[in-house]
């Protein structure tokens, strides 16, 4: 399947000489929800801004729906809706007028029925004649989402959509994202909250210091990079780990009744079977065995703190 967006060898050097993106290549699949995860300053907004046409790339190219973002900007930009990170809105315009403006700007003929439904979905309908100035921060964020969706885009970018957003809006937003995804819209969101990526994304890309470090299915990523732990509960407490088990990386709990074995899921030899046999051989009685997998958060911290060359 052709990717809906294809980013190849993209770099950005700002006029002050700062290299915000370094040779990033990434494909976005049609209809997926992809989360770009990375700390502040990683280059997430820069990447989105280039795809949307707000920032010029320094090197590399991007296609959207198979069209180059520079040569065929009219086609590519009309496919995209962007909810920016900052609350950038004209203050002295009504909600209704600002969404009509956005729709027209993207070359769509007026469609009051569609915009009415959109504002209702975002609980903005009763505010339609209010000036933006009078709205709360959460309401302004809703207006930005309405503007981004006003021209019925097939790709939606959400740049840090939940930074400083209340629970209700968060819930509404994920409902909307769900609805959009069902109608086939591709959704790309950036965040530095891992739970968010874990909750809703199909795939996760990790960006750090302008480089794309990894991108993969959420589950595969957890699987590939996650550490697993096996907790072995013992019938009878022991004082120390028996010598027979010294070749495994084991930890004994304070009460002496639990051994914890940590291993990488991606190593070919986990040694679990041997360990269990050895535990038996050391004369220990098993009571229970549990395994746990690290969350994306653990993985993330693990990746971002790891120097590039060791991976």
């Amino acid at each position, binding site marked *: 399947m052709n990717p809906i967006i294809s980013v190849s060898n993209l770099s950005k050097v*700002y*006029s002050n000489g700062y290299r915000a993106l370094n040779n990033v290549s990434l494909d976005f699949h049609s209809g997926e929800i992809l989360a770009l995860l990375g700390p502040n300053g990683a280059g997430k907004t820069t990447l989105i801004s280039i795809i*949307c*046409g*707000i*920032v*010029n790339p320094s090197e590399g190219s991007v296609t959207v729906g198979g069209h180059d973002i520079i040569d065929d*900007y*009219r*086609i*590519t*930009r*009309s496919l*995209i809706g*962007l909810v*920016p990170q*900052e609350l*950038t*809105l*004209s*203050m*002295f*315009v009504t909600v209704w*007028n600002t969404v*009509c*403006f*956005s*729709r*027209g*700007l*993207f*070359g*769509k*003929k007026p469609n009051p029925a569609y915009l009415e439904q959109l504002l209702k979905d975002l609980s903005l309908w009763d505010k339609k004649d209010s000036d933006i100035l009078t709205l709360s921060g959460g309401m302004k964020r809703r207006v930005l989402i309405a*503007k981004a969706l006003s021209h019925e885009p097939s790709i939606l970018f959400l740049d840090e959509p939940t930074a400083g957003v209340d629970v209700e809006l968060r819930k509404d937003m994920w409902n909307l994202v769900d609805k959009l995804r069902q109608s086939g819209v591709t959704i790309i969101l950036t965040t530095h909250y891992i739970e968010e990526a874990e909750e809703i994304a199909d795939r996760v890309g990790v960006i750090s210091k302008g480089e794309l470090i990894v991108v993969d299915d959420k589950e595969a990523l957890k699987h590939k990079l996650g550490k697993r732990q096996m907790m072995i509960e013992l019938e009878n407490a022991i004082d120390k780990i028996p010598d027979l088990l010294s070749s495994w990386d084991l930890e004994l709990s304070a009460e002496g009744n639990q051994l914890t074995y940590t291993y990488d899921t991606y190593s070919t030899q986990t040694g679990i079977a041997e360990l269990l046999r050895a535990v038996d051989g050391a004369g220990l009685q098993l009571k229970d065995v549990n395994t746990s997998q690290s969350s994306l958060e653990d993985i993330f911290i693990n990746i971002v703190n790891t120097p590039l060359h060791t991976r």
Partner: protein
Amino acid sequence: MMNTYAVRVIYKYEMLRAWDTIMQSFASPVISTILYFVVFGSAIGSRIETVEGVSYGAFIVPGLMMLALLTQSVSNASFGIYFPRFTGTMYEVLSAPISFAEILLGYVGAAATKSFIIGVIILITAGLFVELKIAHPIWMLGFLVLTCISFSLLGFIIGLWANSFEQLQLIPMLVITPLVFLGGSFYTIDMLPPVWQTVSLFNPVVYLVSGFRWSFYEVSDVSIQLSLFMVLLFSAVCLATVWWMFKTGYRLKQ
């Protein structure tokens, strides 16, 4: 293929913004022009009866219109493009499927329309005070429209260049107003000492006012062809500058 919806909404909402602040947009330039008119017309007009056969009150009408047109075109157009840059809402225009020419058409078109309306209101108002005669209405209209467009272009350039509200005010205050006052709005150039007559020929506004006044009373400081040529040249320079700014993404795109 042109994105006509985009041009239309930019134009419409720029005009709507003027309508929302109608006092500031239309009433204040008209009132200040009437004040000039009353003060200059009656104070000086009581001493100078006529200039080249035209009553002084009527003589200054084209110059007063030019003063209002120039300052309003520049401030409207510069504010119109500076404000979205300042608030950050420019991101939306930049991410839209719209060409720079279309952005220009929307913003400059709206600013020029506003100035045109102000010009017409001033003309009608002046007609209530003095007897106006328009010898060449087509030329008059032509100068009016060209002035609105070219100085809105200049305003657009200033709005792109400015990085603060101070800079935005700077050029209209330090350049436009003096040029208009020294541009023969209230006198003919040959009333000046010879040295200043020569200096005045470097002031582009002289050509504008002269041509515009000629279309009313057939009285001019320089030939009408020269006036027209200078206005067209000025428009061309502004257009070329805007074109360069867009090509390089000047102050719009990193």
